[in-house]
């Protein structure tokens, strides 16, 4: 593997659980700070200062939660697929651990996106659920997440579980564009062209700026939660290693 000159050194450093534990330990407080500032500030901005929508009124403010969580749900899945591929190709334990750690966070983002989407739908469309193309695709994405989590917990051997989840994540990622396309197509067949939930034809800056802040804040939050879970996973998997023993003795 040392002959792969095109890969930077830090790529192989990432393979070391101990190195990852140390570096995440140093990054965590900063990301946590960023998360708190961005999310608290963003929420205040969204609730108090951003304008209400001309058509939808104040329920429009739900967009500041719905869009970031939807973006995160999709990004997290991509991360899992990339981590899965790296884990399968280079047999990196760290990649497997990233996949396992990212799954529950991504799934909860999907749940939040669905819940906020449904709640937003009530004042907008009059019912608590609509089989809108985006919501339906998000629901299917949630199923993909749950499948990966179920498979991971069903297989006892850790490395087998990780590899199986990686294969499933990759199969899922290939299917996501197909699912999106087929659901959108199905939706146009069965529903008239209603106002899209997150249509932003030309959002003025005082609407998309708080959205940007929330999206970045959500990404920082994801990083924090991922690093937390990753560190737990590292301690668990490497519990027999001497550096972990030292760490535990220092606690």
């Amino acid at each position: 593997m040392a002959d792969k000159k095109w890969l930077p050194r830090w790529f192989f450093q990432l393979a070391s659980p101990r190195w990852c534990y140390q570096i995440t330990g140093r990054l965590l407080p900063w990301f946590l700070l960023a998360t708190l500032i961005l999310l608290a500030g963003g929420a205040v901005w969204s609730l108090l200062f951003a304008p209400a929508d001309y058509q939808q009124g104040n329920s429009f403010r739900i967009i500041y939660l719905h869009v970031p969580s939807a973006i995160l749900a999709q990004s997290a899945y991509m991360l899992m697929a990339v981590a899965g591929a790296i884990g399968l190709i280079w047999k990196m334990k760290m990649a497997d651990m990233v996949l396992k750690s990212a799954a529950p966070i991504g799934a909860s983002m999907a749940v939040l996106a669905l819940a906020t989407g449904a709640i937003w739908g009530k004042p907008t469309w009059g019912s608590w659920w609509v089989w809108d193309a985006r919501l339906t695709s998000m629901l299917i994405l949630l199923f993909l997440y749950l499948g990966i989590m179920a498979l991971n917990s069903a297989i006892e051997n850790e490395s087998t579980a990780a590899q199986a989840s990686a294969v499933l994540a990759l199969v899922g990622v290939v299917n996501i564009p197909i699912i999106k396309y087929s659901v959108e197509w199905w939706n146009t067949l069965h529903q008239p062209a209603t106002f899209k939930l997150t249509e932003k034809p030309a959002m003025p800056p005082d609407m998309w700026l708080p959205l940007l802040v929330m999206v970045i804040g959500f990404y920082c939050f994801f990083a924090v939660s991922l690093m937390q879970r990753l560190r737990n996973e590292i301690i668990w998997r490497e519990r027999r290693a001497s550096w972990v023993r030292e760490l535990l003795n220092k606690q």
Partner: protein
Amino acid sequence: MSFNSVSEFLAMGGHGLYVWLSYGLGAGVIVANLILPKLSRNRLLAEQKRRLRREETA
């Protein structure tokens, strides 16, 4: 400010239930994802320390 009074802010032009329900859920999900791993970590460290003690005395 988009609102003229606290009561207006809470009412959200009639959509108060939806907005506050959503933001409440959002806060809940985020806080849960930040706190649960911390609790796991504490539990994990305690367990592993106990295991170390057991193995050293054994």
